[in-house]
């Protein structure tokens, strides 16, 4: 973003071309060249983003059955699908589950990620290698991690229950009982999100000058005090962005939950994203129209937080 930041200098530079007329035609040519280079992206965005999204809106305001899908004669129903979704018993459950899963995930991910970032801030032997290894969960295909967690949490043969029993506890049906299923998928998702938080917060810490810590320790501030009065306040902009991005990513999670529980048992892990996936693709009889309505609702929620994120980032850029 350097080009926009230096407008006063840029205005000077622009006068440089030798003859004004040549400069104008050249600028014209380069303007067309710019459009030419951006053309693949523009076409791509229209055909592969705008058009599917438009079809999705269209799905949500018609009554698409499988038959209507094939014949293309779905009946226009206006907002009936949305009314149906809002009035459904699943709606409040899905909303609460989404909130618990999302906020539970990002808060714990953030706290653990921050603790690790502070820990890895100082270089010690092997610190770079260990930090690199922390990226592994994030790089594995989600289906791999989700099925590994599913097996670890298996009621009869899972390692987690074995450890519990060894310490005198009782077996818990982690994934198959409605009380613990949401907790189980959230724990798996937290594990997946720690690397992302660690990397971003660690790079944010690099921007805090060392002499601030040195000055603080000369003033007699211990590590705990330094964390609260230097690290946390100075890291606030990066923290806000990390949390908001985490929120936007977590809202749309499907794979982990679907592979571990498929939204069950009895809807205990049905979030909005899982609900949409389940209606459209999860049953033998696809109900695309209500699914699209749920999906569009999800987009609205994601965009609200997205705009908050963009505003924050904008303000941060303006102040720096």
């Amino acid at each position, binding site marked *: *973003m*350097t*080009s*926009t930041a230096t407008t006063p200098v840029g205005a000077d530079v622009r006068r440089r071309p030798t003859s004004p007329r040549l400069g104008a035609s050249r600028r014209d040519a380069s303007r067309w060249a710019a459009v030419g280079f*951006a053309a693949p992206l523009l076409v791509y965005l229209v055909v592969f983003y705008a058009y599917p999204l438009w079809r*999705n809106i269209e799905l949500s305001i018609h009554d698409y059955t499988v038959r209507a899908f094939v014949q293309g004669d779905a009946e226009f129903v206006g907002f009936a699908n949305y009314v149906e979704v809002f009035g459904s018993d699943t709606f409040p459950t899905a909303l609460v589950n989404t909130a618990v899963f999302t906020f539970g995930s990002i808060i714990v991910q953030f706290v653990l990620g921050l603790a690790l970032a502070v820990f890895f801030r100082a270089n010690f032997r092997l610190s770079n290698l260990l930090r*690199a290894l922390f990226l592994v969960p994030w790089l594995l295909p989600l289906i791999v991690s989700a*099925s590994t*967690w599913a097996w670890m949490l298996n009621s009869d043969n899972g390692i987690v229950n074995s450890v519990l029993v060894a310490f005198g506890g009782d077996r818990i049906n982690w994934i198959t009982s409605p009380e613990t299923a949401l907790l189980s998928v959230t724990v798996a998702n937290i594990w997946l999100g720690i690397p992302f938080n660690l990397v971003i917060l660690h790079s944010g810490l690099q921007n805090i000058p060392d002499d601030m810590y040195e000055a603080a320790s000369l003033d007699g501030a211990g590590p705990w005090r330094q964390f609260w009065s230097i690290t946390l306040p100075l890291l606030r902009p990066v923290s806000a962005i990390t949390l908001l991005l985490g929120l936007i990513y977590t809202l749309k999670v499907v794979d982990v939950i679907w592979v571990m529980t498929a939204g069950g048992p009895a809807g205990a892990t049905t979030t909005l994203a899982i609900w949409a996936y389940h209606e459209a693709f999860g049953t033998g009889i696809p109900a695309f129209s209500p699914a699209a309505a749920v999906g569009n609702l999800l987009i609205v929620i994601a965009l609200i937080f997205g705009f908050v994120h963009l505003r924050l980032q904008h303000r941060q850029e303006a102040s720096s």
Partner: protein
Amino acid sequence: MTAGRSTRRAWWKTVLGVLVTLAMLFPVYWMVNVSFTRTPDLRRRPPNWFPWDPTFDGYAAVLDQQLPALGTSLVLGLGCVALTLVVAAPAGYALALLNLRGGRSLNFLLLVAQMIPAVVMAMGFYAVYNSLGLLNTLWGLIIADSTIAVPFGVLLFTAFMAGIPRELLQAARVDGAGTWRTFISIVLPVSRNSMLTVSLFAFLWAWSDFIFASTLNRNGDLIPITLSIYNYIGNNTTQWNAIMATAVVASVPAAVLLVMAQRYVAAGVTAGAVKD
């Protein structure tokens, strides 16, 4: 602060760091452990903590049944990389160096595009592909998977290319190079690291994708490895050693990329979130 004291503290930190990393990677270890466990031992209580008596049956099953799926995923990943680079690199050039009109709005659109849930895109693509006859085709899946990587790619290229020294481009122009020549022989070679980062992520995302594969390609003849694992879990709930062996094999690209290109990985994660 004496040298002796700081080394002692560092030593203490290394031990703690190793312990924390081991705890974090325990699920990965468990996946590998289970993949070597004999089928009767899978039901043992407590389970074996280490595969003292390893079996390679799981891996034999992978070689026997999963090679086509692995090949499909490879083609899918490479196709996605190619499509992403072809679309994103020129667009980054236009946005960063050619003063594209409306560039700010385009940047904004790309940020918004990254926030759209994949499950919603999947439904839209399903409707579009249904009428175009692209369901269950590899091409259709490559295009759908690339929607994850293209906005990221454009933003990354734009951020990097904006930092290319203007003198370099000026010199090319003096030598008579047009915008196309400048792009091919100056901008692209200089942006090699960005191209690597974008390719790496485009490949990994396509390789790991489950949502698009399970919706747009579920009845295809060529299914990627993620969908194959999912189907396998559904059909063989007892063969967890084979499932985990497939999972280990499916994780190999991630491991290779981590070893070979760790700094590009970190660069990519940060580029998405924090702009310097």
